């Protein structure tokens, strides 16, 4: 058991809760229709008879995942990509710049 400032965290309790919920879920599932077999007609995605596309054709590749998120954050990502130039000179200028900022930060706080 881990005591935090505001309470505690006990993974054993969490696991017990998880098992209880799992049992409840299983009971609910057992109350379902017993004539579902999971074979033949029942497995088809389209009951109306539309042909099912190939599995390979519908697998979403990594490049397309979160397209919407990236599209809506376009401004932010364009700025970020501009920073990540990959030129090693820029890496060093960032380092020197941040050192200078830290100098100002440390000495300015003293003045105030």
């Amino acid at each position: 058991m881990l005591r935090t400032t505001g309470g505690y965290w006990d993974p054993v309790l969490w696991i017990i809760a998880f098992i209880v919920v799992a049992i409840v879920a299983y009971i609910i599932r057992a109350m379902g229709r017993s004539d579902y077999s999971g074979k033949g007609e029942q497995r088809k995605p389209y009951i109306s008879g539309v042909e099912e596309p190939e599995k390979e054709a519908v697998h979403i590749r990594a490049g397309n995942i979160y397209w919407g998120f990236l599209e809506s954050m376009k401004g932010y990502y364009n700025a970020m990509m501009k920073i990540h130039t990959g030129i090693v000179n820029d890496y060093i200028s960032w380092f020197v710049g941040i050192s200078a900022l830290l100098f100002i930060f440390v000495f300015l706080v003293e003045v105030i």
Partner: protein
Amino acid sequence: MIYSIPFYTVVILILVGLYAMIFKRNLIKMAIGLTIVESAVNLFLVTLGYREGGVAPIYTNLPSGISIPEGMVLPVPQALTLTSIVIGVAILALMLSLSMMIYRHYGTLDSRKVRRLKE
């Protein structure tokens, strides 16, 4: 005043080295810039080791009239400098051989073109 000159030199050398590393686009020139910064730091260490009137702590050929061991200099900064030089040699050798391999793979040493890894 005259004793401060090495310290000004150190600052100037560091700035020169950083200038070379930031604005020179050739990887070899960047390595040279790094070496200049390293020399500046070494110069700083050696300057710290200077004590007015002190002699090197070597017993052979010691000038007469030196009290032992008070008249001698504790050679810690020199030892640090030597270590730093040795490390500098290793870094420089590795850096140059990496530049050679980069030239073989990319056909150029321009840092603007050596950036397959980005974003």
